[in-house]
Protein backbone atom coordinates (compact mmCIF):
# COMPACT_ATOMS: atom_id res chain seq x y z
CA UNK A 1 0.00 0.00 0.00
CA UNK A 2 2.78 2.41 0.99
CA UNK A 3 4.77 1.33 -2.07
CA UNK A 4 1.84 2.11 -4.37
CA UNK A 5 1.43 5.54 -2.78
CA UNK A 6 5.17 6.15 -3.13
CA UNK A 7 5.01 5.45 -6.86
CA UNK A 8 1.69 7.17 -7.59
CA UNK A 9 2.23 10.36 -5.56
CA UNK A 10 5.93 10.71 -4.75
CA UNK A 11 5.75 14.42 -3.81
CA UNK A 12 3.00 13.87 -1.28
CA UNK A 13 4.78 10.77 0.04
CA UNK A 14 7.95 12.73 0.80
CA UNK A 15 6.01 15.69 2.16
CA UNK A 16 4.37 13.50 4.79
CA UNK A 17 7.78 12.39 6.03
CA UNK A 18 9.26 15.91 6.03
CA UNK A 19 6.32 17.13 8.10
CA UNK A 20 7.58 14.80 10.87
CA UNK A 21 11.18 16.01 10.30
CA UNK A 22 12.27 12.65 9.03
CA UNK A 23 13.17 11.12 5.65
CA UNK A 24 11.77 7.89 4.16
CA UNK A 25 14.91 5.92 4.99
CA UNK A 26 14.71 6.95 8.66
CA UNK A 27 17.37 9.67 8.63
CA UNK A 28 16.95 13.08 10.23
CA UNK A 29 16.37 15.77 7.59
CA UNK A 30 19.93 17.14 7.78
CA UNK A 31 21.84 13.90 8.16
CA UNK A 32 23.71 11.98 5.48
CA UNK A 33 24.00 8.28 4.81
CA UNK A 34 26.76 6.12 6.30
CA UNK A 35 29.94 6.15 4.25
CA UNK A 36 32.17 3.16 3.54
CA UNK A 37 35.58 3.72 1.93
CA UNK A 38 38.12 1.07 0.91
CA UNK A 39 41.32 1.77 -0.99
CA UNK A 40 43.73 -0.23 -3.12
CA UNK A 41 41.82 -3.48 -3.44
CA UNK A 42 42.43 -3.62 -7.22
CA UNK A 43 45.99 -4.76 -7.83
CA UNK A 44 45.99 -3.96 -11.56
CA UNK A 45 45.49 -0.22 -10.95
CA UNK A 46 48.08 2.30 -9.73
CA UNK A 47 45.53 3.42 -7.15
CA UNK A 48 41.91 2.50 -6.59
CA UNK A 49 39.07 2.99 -4.18
CA UNK A 50 35.51 1.97 -3.54
CA UNK A 51 32.99 4.29 -1.88
CA UNK A 52 29.48 3.51 -0.61
CA UNK A 53 27.03 6.23 0.36
CA UNK A 54 24.32 3.95 1.74
CA UNK A 55 23.37 1.91 -1.34
CA UNK A 56 25.09 4.18 -3.88
CA UNK A 57 28.32 2.42 -4.79
CA UNK A 58 31.18 3.78 -6.88
CA UNK A 59 34.65 2.48 -7.83
CA UNK A 60 37.51 4.66 -9.02
CA UNK A 61 40.84 3.54 -10.43
CA UNK A 62 43.94 5.02 -11.98
CA UNK A 63 46.00 3.62 -14.85
CA UNK A 64 49.13 5.11 -16.38
CA UNK A 65 50.51 5.24 -19.89
CA UNK A 66 53.41 7.13 -21.41
CA UNK A 67 52.93 9.97 -23.87
CA UNK A 68 54.93 12.75 -25.41
CA UNK A 69 54.30 15.99 -23.46
CA UNK A 70 52.62 18.95 -25.13
CA UNK A 71 55.00 21.22 -27.04
CA UNK A 72 53.89 24.20 -24.92
CA UNK A 73 54.31 22.24 -21.67
CA UNK A 74 57.35 19.99 -22.04
CA UNK A 75 57.73 19.44 -18.30
CA UNK A 76 54.18 18.31 -17.55
CA UNK A 77 52.19 15.13 -17.84
CA UNK A 78 48.49 14.51 -18.45
CA UNK A 79 45.52 13.65 -16.27
CA UNK A 80 42.52 12.22 -18.15
CA UNK A 81 39.41 11.80 -15.97
CA UNK A 82 36.31 9.96 -17.13
CA UNK A 83 33.02 9.03 -15.51
CA UNK A 84 31.16 5.88 -16.57
CA UNK A 85 27.52 5.32 -15.64
CA UNK A 86 27.04 1.81 -17.03
CA UNK A 87 23.71 0.07 -17.59
CA UNK A 88 24.71 -1.96 -14.54
CA UNK A 89 24.00 0.81 -12.06
CA UNK A 90 20.44 1.82 -12.88
CA UNK A 91 17.78 0.92 -15.43
CA UNK A 92 17.68 4.55 -16.64
CA UNK A 93 21.08 4.06 -18.35
CA UNK A 94 20.98 2.05 -21.55
CA UNK A 95 23.99 0.18 -22.95
CA UNK A 96 25.88 1.97 -25.70
CA UNK A 97 26.90 5.63 -25.95
CA UNK A 98 27.32 7.45 -22.63
CA UNK A 99 24.27 9.36 -21.44
CA UNK A 100 24.25 13.16 -21.18
CA UNK A 101 24.54 12.84 -17.40
CA UNK A 102 27.76 10.84 -17.77
CA UNK A 103 29.19 13.30 -20.30
CA UNK A 104 28.39 16.24 -17.99
CA UNK A 105 29.97 14.45 -15.03
CA UNK A 106 33.13 13.69 -17.02
CA UNK A 107 33.43 17.38 -17.96
CA UNK A 108 32.85 18.47 -14.37
CA UNK A 109 35.36 15.94 -13.05
CA UNK A 110 37.94 17.23 -15.52
CA UNK A 111 37.26 20.81 -14.38
CA UNK A 112 37.49 19.96 -10.66
CA UNK A 113 40.62 17.82 -11.01
CA UNK A 114 42.38 20.27 -13.30
CA UNK A 115 44.76 21.67 -10.70
CA UNK A 116 44.69 18.81 -8.19
CA UNK A 117 47.59 16.76 -9.46
CA UNK A 118 51.02 18.40 -9.67
CA UNK A 119 51.60 17.67 -13.36
CA UNK A 120 55.33 18.44 -13.22
CA UNK A 121 55.95 15.26 -11.25
CA UNK A 122 54.36 13.29 -14.08
CA UNK A 123 57.18 14.29 -16.39
CA UNK A 124 59.73 11.51 -16.89
CA UNK A 125 61.97 13.04 -19.56
CA UNK A 126 61.19 16.70 -20.39
CA UNK A 127 59.93 17.06 -23.92
CA UNK A 128 60.16 13.32 -24.58
CA UNK A 129 58.20 11.16 -22.14
CA UNK A 130 55.66 11.84 -19.46
CA UNK A 131 52.99 9.93 -17.61
CA UNK A 132 49.41 10.14 -18.78
CA UNK A 133 47.19 9.20 -15.85
CA UNK A 134 43.73 7.87 -16.71
CA UNK A 135 41.44 8.50 -13.73
CA UNK A 136 38.24 6.53 -14.19
CA UNK A 137 35.23 6.49 -11.90
CA UNK A 138 32.57 3.85 -12.53
CA UNK A 139 29.23 3.79 -10.76
CA UNK A 140 28.10 0.33 -9.67
CA UNK A 141 24.79 1.24 -8.03
CA UNK A 142 23.01 4.57 -8.51
CA UNK A 143 20.80 5.31 -5.52
CA UNK A 144 21.20 9.07 -5.63
CA UNK A 145 24.08 11.48 -5.05
CA UNK A 146 26.45 9.69 -7.39
CA UNK A 147 28.55 12.80 -7.96
CA UNK A 148 29.63 13.15 -4.30
CA UNK A 149 30.54 9.47 -4.17
CA UNK A 150 32.48 9.77 -7.46
CA UNK A 151 34.54 12.71 -6.28
CA UNK A 152 35.31 11.09 -2.92
CA UNK A 153 36.34 7.87 -4.68
CA UNK A 154 38.53 9.78 -7.15
CA UNK A 155 40.23 11.75 -4.38
CA UNK A 156 40.84 8.58 -2.38
CA UNK A 157 42.25 6.80 -5.45
CA UNK A 158 44.57 9.73 -6.22
CA UNK A 159 45.71 9.95 -2.61
CA UNK A 160 46.53 6.25 -2.39
CA UNK A 161 48.06 5.95 -5.89
CA UNK A 162 51.74 5.18 -6.43
CA UNK A 163 53.63 6.18 -9.58
CA UNK A 164 55.93 3.28 -10.52
CA UNK A 165 59.69 3.87 -10.66
CA UNK A 166 61.15 4.33 -14.14
CA UNK A 167 64.57 3.80 -15.62
CA UNK A 168 66.04 5.34 -18.77
CA UNK A 169 68.45 3.41 -20.90
CA UNK A 170 70.71 5.62 -23.05
CA UNK A 171 71.70 2.77 -25.45
CA UNK A 172 68.16 1.98 -26.47
CA UNK A 173 66.75 5.49 -25.77
CA UNK A 174 63.80 3.87 -23.98
CA UNK A 175 62.20 4.67 -20.65
CA UNK A 176 60.85 1.59 -18.95
CA UNK A 177 58.91 0.92 -15.77
CA UNK A 178 60.98 -0.73 -13.06
CA UNK A 179 58.65 -3.01 -11.12
CA UNK A 180 61.29 -3.71 -8.48
CA UNK A 181 62.02 -0.03 -7.87
CA UNK A 182 60.25 2.04 -5.27
CA UNK A 183 57.26 3.97 -6.48
CA UNK A 184 56.43 7.55 -5.56
CA UNK A 185 53.20 8.77 -4.03
CA UNK A 186 51.36 11.29 -6.19
CA UNK A 187 51.85 14.89 -5.14
CA UNK A 188 48.45 16.53 -4.85
CA UNK A 189 47.95 20.28 -4.52
CA UNK A 190 44.65 19.80 -2.73
CA UNK A 191 42.00 17.14 -2.19
CA UNK A 192 38.52 18.02 -3.37
CA UNK A 193 35.38 16.55 -1.86
CA UNK A 194 31.83 17.44 -2.72
CA UNK A 195 28.56 17.98 -0.86
CA UNK A 196 25.24 17.98 -2.69
CA UNK A 197 21.98 19.22 -1.25
CA UNK A 198 18.52 18.92 -2.77
CA UNK A 199 15.82 21.48 -2.30
CA UNK A 200 12.27 20.31 -1.86
CA UNK A 201 9.35 22.34 -0.51
CA UNK A 202 11.69 25.04 0.78
CA UNK A 203 13.76 22.51 2.80
CA UNK A 204 17.35 21.64 1.99
CA UNK A 205 18.03 17.92 2.10
CA UNK A 206 21.67 16.80 2.01
CA UNK A 207 22.77 13.56 0.33
CA UNK A 208 19.54 12.78 -1.57
CA UNK A 209 18.64 9.20 -2.45
CA UNK A 210 17.45 8.27 -5.95
CA UNK A 211 13.79 8.78 -5.02
CA UNK A 212 14.52 12.18 -3.47
CA UNK A 213 16.50 13.26 -6.56
CA UNK A 214 13.48 12.56 -8.74
CA UNK A 215 11.19 14.90 -6.74
CA UNK A 216 13.65 17.69 -6.02
CA UNK A 217 12.92 21.22 -7.16
CA UNK A 218 16.55 22.22 -7.30
CA UNK A 219 19.96 21.21 -6.05
CA UNK A 220 23.28 22.74 -5.07
CA UNK A 221 26.64 20.99 -5.33
CA UNK A 222 29.62 22.47 -3.58
CA UNK A 223 33.19 21.20 -4.04
CA UNK A 224 35.45 22.01 -1.12
CA UNK A 225 39.10 21.18 -0.45
CA UNK A 226 40.61 19.84 2.75
CA UNK A 227 41.36 23.36 4.03
CA UNK A 228 37.74 24.47 3.69
CA UNK A 229 38.21 26.59 0.58
CA UNK A 230 35.37 26.38 -1.92
CA UNK A 231 36.65 25.11 -5.29
CA UNK A 232 33.47 24.87 -7.37
CA UNK A 233 29.76 25.42 -6.95
CA UNK A 234 26.94 24.71 -9.32
CA UNK A 235 23.23 24.48 -8.98
CA UNK A 236 20.26 23.29 -10.97
CA UNK A 237 16.55 23.94 -10.78
CA UNK A 238 15.22 26.85 -8.78
CA UNK A 239 16.47 27.73 -5.31
CA UNK A 240 15.14 30.36 -2.94
CA UNK A 241 17.80 33.05 -2.46
CA UNK A 242 17.81 32.83 1.35
CA UNK A 243 18.85 29.16 1.28
CA UNK A 244 22.10 29.63 -0.62
CA UNK A 245 24.44 30.91 2.09
CA UNK A 246 23.05 28.35 4.55
CA UNK A 247 23.72 25.51 2.14
CA UNK A 248 27.31 26.67 1.48
CA UNK A 249 27.97 26.82 5.21
CA UNK A 250 26.56 23.33 5.66
CA UNK A 251 28.61 22.09 2.72
CA UNK A 252 31.90 23.33 4.21
CA UNK A 253 31.12 21.67 7.58
CA UNK A 254 30.14 18.41 5.93
CA UNK A 255 33.22 18.51 3.67
CA UNK A 256 35.37 18.61 6.79
CA UNK A 257 33.87 15.29 7.91
CA UNK A 258 34.45 13.75 4.46
CA UNK A 259 38.08 14.93 4.45
CA UNK A 260 38.70 13.41 7.87
CA UNK A 261 37.31 10.06 6.66
CA UNK A 262 39.62 10.33 3.64
CA UNK A 263 42.57 11.11 5.91
CA UNK A 264 41.81 8.21 8.22
CA UNK A 265 41.62 5.64 5.44
CA UNK A 266 44.42 6.82 3.18
CA UNK A 267 46.83 7.79 5.96
CA UNK A 268 49.15 10.78 6.57
Amino acid at each position, binding site marked *: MADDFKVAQPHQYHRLFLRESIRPDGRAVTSCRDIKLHVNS*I*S*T*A*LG*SSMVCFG*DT*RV*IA*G*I*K*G*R*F*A*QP*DIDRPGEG*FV*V*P*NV*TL*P*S*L*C*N*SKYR*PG*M*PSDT*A*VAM*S*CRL*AAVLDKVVDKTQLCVRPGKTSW*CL*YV*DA*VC*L*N*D*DGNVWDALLLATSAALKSATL*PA*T*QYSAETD*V*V*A*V*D*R*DGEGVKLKLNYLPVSVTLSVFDGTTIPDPT*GAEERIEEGSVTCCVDQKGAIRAVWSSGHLPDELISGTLKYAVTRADILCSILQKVTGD
Partner: protein
Amino acid sequence: MPQVDPKRNCGPEDAYEPPILRPTKTKDQLPEVEEKPRPDGRRNDQLRPFYMKTGIITKAQGSVYIEQGQTKVVAAVYGPKEVLKREDFSLKGKVMCEFKYMPFSRAATYSEPRQTFEEKVISKTIAEAMEGVIILSKFPKSEVLISIQMIEDDGGTLSLAMTAASVALIDAKIEVRDLVIGCTIRFYNGGRILVDPTAEEEHTKTSEGAGFHLAVMPSLSQVTALKQAGKIEQGQARECIEACWEGCLRIATAVKKLLEETLGEQPG
Protein backbone atom coordinates in the same frame (compact mmCIF):
# COMPACT_ATOMS: atom_id res chain seq x y z
CA MET B 1 45.96 3.92 -30.69
CA PRO B 2 42.77 4.98 -28.90
CA GLN B 3 40.04 6.31 -31.17
CA VAL B 4 38.75 9.83 -30.69
CA ASP B 5 35.50 9.64 -28.74
CA PRO B 6 33.53 12.90 -28.70
CA LYS B 7 31.61 11.97 -25.56
CA ARG B 8 34.61 11.27 -23.36
CA ASN B 9 37.92 12.85 -22.36
CA CYS B 10 40.41 11.03 -24.54
CA GLY B 11 43.81 12.30 -23.60
CA PRO B 12 46.79 12.41 -25.96
CA GLU B 13 46.37 10.29 -29.09
CA ASP B 14 49.94 8.99 -29.01
CA ALA B 15 49.76 7.52 -25.49
CA TYR B 16 51.24 4.02 -25.27
CA GLU B 17 51.66 1.30 -22.67
CA PRO B 18 54.97 1.80 -20.83
CA PRO B 19 57.56 -0.92 -21.49
CA ILE B 20 58.49 -3.02 -18.46
CA LEU B 21 62.15 -3.23 -17.52
CA ARG B 22 62.29 -6.91 -16.70
CA PRO B 23 59.40 -9.20 -17.62
CA THR B 24 57.90 -10.81 -14.51
CA LYS B 25 58.95 -14.33 -15.37
CA THR B 26 61.67 -15.64 -17.66
CA LYS B 27 60.98 -18.68 -19.86
CA ASP B 28 62.67 -21.01 -17.34
CA GLN B 29 60.31 -20.01 -14.59
CA LEU B 30 57.05 -20.50 -16.51
CA PRO B 31 55.03 -23.55 -15.49
CA GLU B 32 55.22 -25.29 -18.89
CA VAL B 33 56.66 -28.59 -17.72
CA GLU B 34 55.44 -30.69 -14.85
CA GLU B 35 58.47 -30.02 -12.68
CA LYS B 36 57.97 -26.28 -12.55
CA PRO B 37 55.49 -25.22 -9.86
CA ARG B 38 52.66 -22.79 -10.61
CA PRO B 39 53.51 -19.24 -9.52
CA ASP B 40 50.99 -19.40 -6.68
CA GLY B 41 51.90 -22.97 -5.70
CA ARG B 42 48.62 -24.63 -6.68
CA ARG B 43 48.28 -28.16 -8.06
CA ASN B 44 47.44 -28.52 -11.76
CA ASP B 45 43.76 -29.11 -11.04
CA GLN B 46 43.38 -26.85 -8.04
CA LEU B 47 40.89 -23.99 -8.27
CA ARG B 48 41.43 -20.57 -6.72
CA PRO B 49 39.41 -19.46 -3.66
CA PHE B 50 35.85 -18.54 -4.62
CA TYR B 51 33.66 -15.82 -3.06
CA MET B 52 30.14 -14.90 -4.09
CA LYS B 53 27.57 -12.38 -2.83
CA THR B 54 24.16 -11.81 -4.38
CA GLY B 55 21.91 -8.75 -4.20
CA ILE B 56 24.81 -6.31 -4.26
CA ILE B 57 23.21 -3.91 -6.80
CA THR B 58 20.00 -2.82 -5.11
CA LYS B 59 18.67 -1.04 -8.20
CA ALA B 60 18.71 -4.19 -10.32
CA GLN B 61 16.23 -7.06 -10.22
CA GLY B 62 19.11 -9.48 -9.62
CA SER B 63 22.83 -9.08 -9.14
CA VAL B 64 25.93 -10.85 -7.93
CA TYR B 65 29.55 -10.11 -7.09
CA ILE B 66 32.02 -12.95 -7.58
CA GLU B 67 35.71 -13.23 -6.82
CA GLN B 68 37.80 -16.14 -8.10
CA GLY B 69 41.30 -15.55 -6.83
CA GLN B 70 42.02 -11.96 -7.85
CA THR B 71 39.54 -11.92 -10.73
CA LYS B 72 36.54 -9.85 -9.63
CA VAL B 73 33.30 -9.44 -11.55
CA VAL B 74 29.92 -7.87 -10.86
CA ALA B 75 26.81 -8.72 -12.88
CA ALA B 76 23.31 -7.26 -12.77
CA VAL B 77 20.09 -8.27 -14.46
CA TYR B 78 17.35 -5.83 -15.39
CA GLY B 79 14.04 -7.15 -16.64
CA PRO B 80 11.98 -8.64 -18.01
CA LYS B 81 10.99 -5.27 -19.45
CA GLU B 82 8.81 -4.37 -22.39
CA VAL B 83 10.83 -3.86 -25.58
CA LEU B 84 10.95 -0.27 -26.70
CA LYS B 85 10.81 -0.79 -30.45
CA ARG B 86 7.71 -2.28 -32.05
CA GLU B 87 9.80 -4.21 -34.60
CA ASP B 88 11.40 -6.17 -31.80
CA PHE B 89 8.09 -7.62 -30.61
CA SER B 90 8.29 -11.39 -30.62
CA LEU B 91 6.64 -14.30 -28.85
CA LYS B 92 9.96 -15.18 -27.28
CA GLY B 93 11.79 -12.86 -24.93
CA LYS B 94 15.05 -11.24 -26.00
CA VAL B 95 18.33 -11.35 -24.14
CA MET B 96 20.76 -8.43 -24.30
CA CYS B 97 24.16 -8.49 -22.70
CA GLU B 98 26.69 -5.76 -22.11
CA PHE B 99 30.13 -6.92 -21.02
CA LYS B 100 32.84 -4.41 -20.17
CA TYR B 101 36.28 -4.45 -18.65
CA MET B 102 36.63 -1.51 -16.25
CA PRO B 103 39.36 0.81 -17.56
CA PHE B 104 41.77 -0.12 -14.74
CA SER B 105 40.98 -3.82 -14.60
CA ARG B 106 43.73 -5.26 -16.80
CA ALA B 107 47.34 -5.27 -15.67
CA ALA B 108 48.96 -5.04 -19.08
CA THR B 109 46.80 -2.35 -20.64
CA TYR B 110 44.38 0.52 -20.10
CA SER B 111 40.90 -0.48 -21.39
CA GLU B 112 39.30 2.54 -22.94
CA PRO B 113 35.82 3.36 -21.64
CA ARG B 114 34.29 2.79 -25.08
CA GLN B 115 33.31 -0.86 -25.64
CA THR B 116 35.93 -2.54 -27.83
CA PHE B 117 35.49 -5.20 -30.48
CA GLU B 118 36.68 -7.94 -28.11
CA GLU B 119 34.13 -6.91 -25.49
CA LYS B 120 31.34 -6.86 -28.07
CA VAL B 121 32.23 -10.44 -29.05
CA ILE B 122 32.19 -11.54 -25.41
CA SER B 123 28.84 -9.78 -24.90
CA LYS B 124 27.36 -11.66 -27.85
CA THR B 125 28.81 -14.98 -26.63
CA ILE B 126 27.26 -14.55 -23.20
CA ALA B 127 23.90 -13.41 -24.62
CA GLU B 128 23.76 -16.46 -26.91
CA ALA B 129 24.74 -18.80 -24.08
CA MET B 130 22.01 -17.39 -21.85
CA GLU B 131 19.40 -17.67 -24.62
CA GLY B 132 19.76 -21.42 -24.34
CA VAL B 133 19.26 -21.35 -20.61
CA ILE B 134 16.47 -18.84 -20.00
CA ILE B 135 12.94 -20.05 -20.69
CA LEU B 136 12.25 -17.25 -23.16
CA SER B 137 8.66 -18.27 -23.93
CA LYS B 138 7.72 -17.16 -20.41
CA PHE B 139 8.11 -13.50 -21.26
CA PRO B 140 7.01 -12.57 -24.78
CA LYS B 141 7.53 -9.03 -26.12
CA SER B 142 10.03 -8.42 -23.35
CA GLU B 143 13.75 -8.22 -22.98
CA VAL B 144 16.22 -9.04 -20.27
CA LEU B 145 19.39 -6.98 -19.95
CA ILE B 146 22.44 -8.63 -18.39
CA SER B 147 25.10 -6.09 -17.56
CA ILE B 148 28.55 -7.34 -16.53
CA GLN B 149 31.52 -5.28 -15.41
CA MET B 150 34.91 -6.86 -14.87
CA ILE B 151 36.48 -5.09 -11.92
CA GLU B 152 39.83 -6.88 -12.03
CA ASP B 153 41.14 -9.31 -14.64
CA ASP B 154 43.41 -12.02 -13.31
CA GLY B 155 42.50 -14.75 -15.78
CA GLY B 156 39.37 -16.77 -16.53
CA THR B 157 37.21 -13.72 -17.25
CA LEU B 158 34.86 -15.14 -19.90
CA SER B 159 33.99 -18.19 -17.79
CA LEU B 160 33.53 -16.18 -14.63
CA ALA B 161 31.32 -13.71 -16.51
CA MET B 162 29.10 -16.64 -17.62
CA THR B 163 28.81 -17.90 -14.06
CA ALA B 164 28.04 -14.40 -12.81
CA ALA B 165 25.37 -13.81 -15.49
CA SER B 166 23.67 -17.08 -14.58
CA VAL B 167 23.68 -16.43 -10.82
CA ALA B 168 22.37 -12.89 -11.39
CA LEU B 169 19.50 -14.34 -13.46
CA ILE B 170 18.64 -16.70 -10.61
CA ASP B 171 18.81 -13.82 -8.12
CA ALA B 172 16.41 -11.91 -10.40
CA LYS B 173 14.01 -14.90 -10.21
CA ILE B 174 13.96 -15.27 -13.99
CA GLU B 175 13.02 -18.81 -14.98
CA VAL B 176 16.06 -20.74 -16.17
CA ARG B 177 16.62 -24.37 -17.06
CA ASP B 178 19.76 -24.69 -14.93
CA LEU B 179 22.77 -22.85 -13.55
CA VAL B 180 25.53 -22.07 -16.02
CA ILE B 181 29.02 -22.55 -14.67
CA GLY B 182 32.17 -21.64 -16.57
CA CYS B 183 35.72 -22.86 -16.19
CA THR B 184 38.96 -22.02 -17.98
CA ILE B 185 42.00 -24.19 -18.55
CA ARG B 186 45.39 -23.55 -20.10
CA PHE B 187 47.02 -26.32 -22.06
CA TYR B 188 50.76 -26.40 -22.66
CA ASN B 189 52.38 -28.31 -25.52
CA GLY B 190 54.13 -30.70 -23.12
CA GLY B 191 50.69 -32.04 -22.18
CA ARG B 192 50.28 -30.11 -18.93
CA ILE B 193 46.80 -28.81 -18.20
CA LEU B 194 46.38 -25.98 -15.67
CA VAL B 195 42.86 -25.48 -14.38
CA ASP B 196 41.73 -21.93 -13.54
CA PRO B 197 44.84 -20.08 -14.77
CA THR B 198 45.81 -16.62 -13.58
CA ALA B 199 46.37 -13.88 -16.16
CA GLU B 200 50.09 -14.62 -16.11
CA GLU B 201 49.49 -18.31 -16.87
CA GLU B 202 46.85 -17.56 -19.51
CA HIS B 203 48.80 -15.14 -21.62
CA THR B 204 52.32 -16.56 -21.70
CA LYS B 205 53.53 -15.73 -25.17
CA THR B 206 56.60 -17.93 -25.06
CA SER B 207 55.03 -21.22 -25.96
CA GLU B 208 52.26 -22.57 -28.11
CA GLY B 209 49.42 -24.35 -26.46
CA ALA B 210 45.80 -23.42 -26.05
CA GLY B 211 43.30 -21.83 -23.75
CA PHE B 212 39.88 -23.41 -23.29
CA HIS B 213 36.78 -21.75 -21.87
CA LEU B 214 33.82 -24.03 -21.22
CA ALA B 215 30.38 -23.16 -19.84
CA VAL B 216 28.07 -25.99 -18.84
CA MET B 217 24.70 -26.62 -17.29
CA PRO B 218 25.79 -29.06 -14.56
CA SER B 219 22.47 -30.75 -13.75
CA LEU B 220 21.46 -31.17 -17.38
CA SER B 221 25.01 -32.13 -18.47
CA GLN B 222 24.84 -29.79 -21.43
CA VAL B 223 27.38 -27.36 -22.84
CA THR B 224 26.20 -23.78 -23.37
CA ALA B 225 29.45 -22.27 -24.61
CA LEU B 226 32.86 -23.49 -25.70
CA LYS B 227 35.74 -21.33 -26.80
CA GLN B 228 39.22 -22.43 -27.69
CA ALA B 229 42.15 -20.31 -28.78
CA GLY B 230 45.48 -21.76 -29.88
CA LYS B 231 46.64 -24.91 -31.62
CA ILE B 232 45.82 -28.34 -30.22
CA GLU B 233 45.65 -31.99 -31.38
CA GLN B 234 42.29 -33.82 -31.43
CA GLY B 235 43.17 -36.29 -28.65
CA GLN B 236 44.43 -33.52 -26.43
CA ALA B 237 41.25 -31.50 -27.01
CA ARG B 238 39.19 -34.29 -25.45
CA GLU B 239 41.41 -34.25 -22.34
CA CYS B 240 41.11 -30.48 -22.05
CA ILE B 241 37.33 -30.50 -22.27
CA GLU B 242 37.16 -33.18 -19.60
CA ALA B 243 39.43 -31.17 -17.31
CA CYS B 244 37.24 -28.10 -17.88
CA TRP B 245 34.09 -30.08 -17.21
CA GLU B 246 35.45 -31.41 -13.94
CA GLY B 247 36.40 -27.86 -12.92
CA CYS B 248 32.89 -26.65 -13.77
CA LEU B 249 31.29 -29.37 -11.64
CA ARG B 250 33.41 -28.46 -8.65
CA ILE B 251 32.62 -24.78 -8.99
CA ALA B 252 28.95 -25.72 -9.41
CA THR B 253 28.96 -27.47 -6.02
CA ALA B 254 30.31 -24.33 -4.37
CA VAL B 255 27.87 -22.01 -6.18
CA LYS B 256 24.84 -24.21 -5.37
CA LYS B 257 25.79 -24.30 -1.69
CA LEU B 258 26.19 -20.51 -1.56
CA LEU B 259 22.90 -19.98 -3.39
CA GLU B 260 21.06 -22.31 -1.03
CA GLU B 261 22.31 -20.29 1.90
CA THR B 262 21.35 -16.92 0.42
CA LEU B 263 18.15 -17.76 -1.43
CA GLY B 264 16.98 -20.70 0.65
CA GLU B 265 15.92 -22.79 -2.36
CA GLN B 266 17.48 -25.44 -4.55
CA PRO B 267 18.24 -24.07 -8.04
CA GLY B 268 18.01 -26.18 -11.20
